[in-house]
């Protein structure tokens, strides 16, 4: 397997490559095994009558989803999106241009469902659905991270993510699922999280982390699990129990809750914020996973639901949870349902309940990566754009040296990390590295201009992706940080001895 040795060296993050037709042709992530497929209600392998079924599914989607219908019709091929996809920028493969990616499916839709395509296929670029086409779909609809950057720039708001999700749903329905996403969804259904972390192991991990917290701070900071009657249930990506730097973020949430004096708990039944049902475009699977959160909240009798740092999970939580698993009339209506941990932390900072020693983060010169799903598919706070301001507000409250990357690569124009949308798998490593190159080029710019050493993120996928690909771009793997890791480093708990506080400065003076 090529390992991304031919990474593009970009002088500017948005340099437009020359077309390299076929550059990523044939990339084919592992297929889901029959047992993975079965748990999701999909056929185990490619059906003999797959073509008819695929077309039936396409017709059904056009009846079920307005976006799919409108987006297939409305594109005028103006070309505005052609240079907006990070996978196109990183690979030069023309089929990674958003419109070209949509056309892989649109061409088939036209052939079978439109007058022009039925009678003048050549004229409008319509084509028959063949096995080659199906494999082309499998390849290129697994080179889209559903990040929605193209939809920002399309004059009609055409969102390639919707087309990718539809294509994956069609492929799943004929027995051609992707192993990475579908195996994981099965684990959530069986065990409650993507990792397959059972309650006993989860409890042991949390106890271990409680020990670490006490060793570090001298204070007993708890990570409660399945505690009935707690006010807040925290739903966080299971990577927060396992991976670096995710765990440091989890410790940060715990410290914030501790200091805010609220009662909270994790749930072993809903021990996962991620919802890969989104990635495969399956409303039913997404709903089933979301309902676990509702059930956990009811069983534990909590009043509030707070989500940890996870990009697509926040999209599903903020934008869809009420739809999929609502109404949440049994929760305390005084608080947003659900609430993001950053909304919570920022609220506490504004209330003045948290004390920080910002100098603890002085060895870091920081930038922030807006995660795609948070930036373009959700909100925090009451105002549009809160999803950009609140993370930055929190960062500035805990860190002295903060610098934004080029504005064309942040906020709603942010570049995907390259690993989102169900692509965070080793068999797509080459694509992941190439897809990360525009973001890395933007990072290298602020490193040169401002000496930036670290990048913070609020998404489990972004964090894992960056820690894996950053070494290929000359950064240490621990250059990516959780935002609540910075909070964790700077926060001064009540009663905590700040032993190395040489200047004896009053940490309270450091709060924003």
């Amino acid at each position, binding site marked *: 397997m090529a390992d991304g040795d031919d990474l593009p060296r970009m002088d500017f993050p948005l340099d437009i490559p020359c077309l390299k037709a076929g550059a990523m042709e044939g990339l084919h992530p592992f297929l889901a095994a029959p047992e993975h497929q079965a748990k999701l209600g999909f056929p185990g392998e490619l059906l003999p009558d797959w073509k008819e079924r695929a077309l039936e599914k396409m017709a059904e989607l056009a009846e079920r989803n307005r976006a799919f219908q409108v987006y297939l019709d409305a594109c005028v091929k103006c070309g505005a999106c052609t*240079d907006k996809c990070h996978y196109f920028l990183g690979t030069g493969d023309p089929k990674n241009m958003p419109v070209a990616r949509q056309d892989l499916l649109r061409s088939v839709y036209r052939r079978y469902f439109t007058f022009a395509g039925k009678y003048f296929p050549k004229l409008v670029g319509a084509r028959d659905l063949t096995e080659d086409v199906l494999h082309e779909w499998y390849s290129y609809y697994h080179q889209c991270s559903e990040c929605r950057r193209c939809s920002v720039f399309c004059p009609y708001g055409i969102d390639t993510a919707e087309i990718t999700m539809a294509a994956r749903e069609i492929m799943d329905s004929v027995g051609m699922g992707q192993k990475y996403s579908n195996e994981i969804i099965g684990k959530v259904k069986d065990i409650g999280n993507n990792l397959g972390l059972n309650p006993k192991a989860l409890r042991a991990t949390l106890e271990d982390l409680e020990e670490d917290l006490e060793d570090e701070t001298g204070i007993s900071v708890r990570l409660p699990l399945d505690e009935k009657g707690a006010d807040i249930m925290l739903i966080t990506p299971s990577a927060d129990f396992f991976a670096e730097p995710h765990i440091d973020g989890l410790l940060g949430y715990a410290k914030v809750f501790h200091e805010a004096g609220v009662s909270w708990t994790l749930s072993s039944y809903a021990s996962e914020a991620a919802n890969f049902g989104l990635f495969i475009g399956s*409303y*039913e699977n997404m709903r089933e996973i979301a309902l676990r959160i509702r059930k956990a909240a009811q069983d534990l009798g909590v009043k509030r639901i707070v989500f940890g740092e996870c990009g697509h999970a926040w999209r599903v939580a903020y934008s869809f949870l009420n*739809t999929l698993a609502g109404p949440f009339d049994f929760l305390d209506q005084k608080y947003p349902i659900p609430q993001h941990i950053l909304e919570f932390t920022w609220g506490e900072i504004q209330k003045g309940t948290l004390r920080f020693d910002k100098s603890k983060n002085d060895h870091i010169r920081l930038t922030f990566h807006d995660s795609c799903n948070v930036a373009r598919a959700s909100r925090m706070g009451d105002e549009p754009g809160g999803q950009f301001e609140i993370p930055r507000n929190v960062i500035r409250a805990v860190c002295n040296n903060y610098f934004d990357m080029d504005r064309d690569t942040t906020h709603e124009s942010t570049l995907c990390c390259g690993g989102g949308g169900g692509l965070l798998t080793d068999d797509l490593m080459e694509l992941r590295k190439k897809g990360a190159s525009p973001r890395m080029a933007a990072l290298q710019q602020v490193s040169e201009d401002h000496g930036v050493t670290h990048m913070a993120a609020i998404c489990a996928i972004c964090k894992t992706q960056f820690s894996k690909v950053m070494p290929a771009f000359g950064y240490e793997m621990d250059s990516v940080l959780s935002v609540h890791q910075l909070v964790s480093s700077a926060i001064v708990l009540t009663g905590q001895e700040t032993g190395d506080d040489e200047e004896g400065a009053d940490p309270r003076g450091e709060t924003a």
Partner: protein
Amino acid sequence: MLSASFAILFYAATAILVVGVAMKVVRYARVPAPLKIPTTPAPVTRAGVILRMFREVVFFESLYRSNKWIWLFGWTFHMGLWLVLIRHIRYFTYDVWWWVALAQPWGTYAGFAMLAGLLGLWARRFLVERIRYISNPSDHLMLALLVAIAGSGLMMRFVARPDIMSVKAFMLGLLRFRIEDLPAQPILLVHLGLVAVLMIVFPISKLLHAPGVFFSPSRNQIDNPRERRHLAPWAARLEG
């Protein structure tokens, strides 16, 4: 004979345009959006969404952010088209409305602007590698059609002016289901014929972007999913 053929052509073209677009619009309106998917940051009120849509269809806001050349050519073409269309209303009303008269002196410039925009867009289909790649024959034909319509229109203004009062009489006649004489002037006939073709292909082509944009969930949804539960009818049935 000629007049009758064109009359029939226009009745047919109008019927296809109206019925075809209406069917599509009904379909867009009927198919539910199962989830809240506005591209954020998005307005949190209905008024905000109307404003967003207004900026989108009047100023092409997203396109402007995306690509200045496409915006320049596309916006010039569309705004020119609007002025030219307004200018043409005079052929369908007995008394010329005041605001149509107002557009009269600008109409000619608008015709050139329209043509310039189209040629710019067409040039990009040849010159820009990425856009060349995504262009189908129909994309070129659509531009050819529009260029021919604009070109023939301008020729009637500057090269071979038809008997405009007869044209108006013919059009007013059509509105009253009477067939008046249409001057047999070649450029005029080409112009009218191509317009009829445009009307006919409208509901089966990418021209559906015009009604489509108003139904685009990423642009027309309010960002209020936490406050209001959004549920599609078919999804409600899952709750059983």
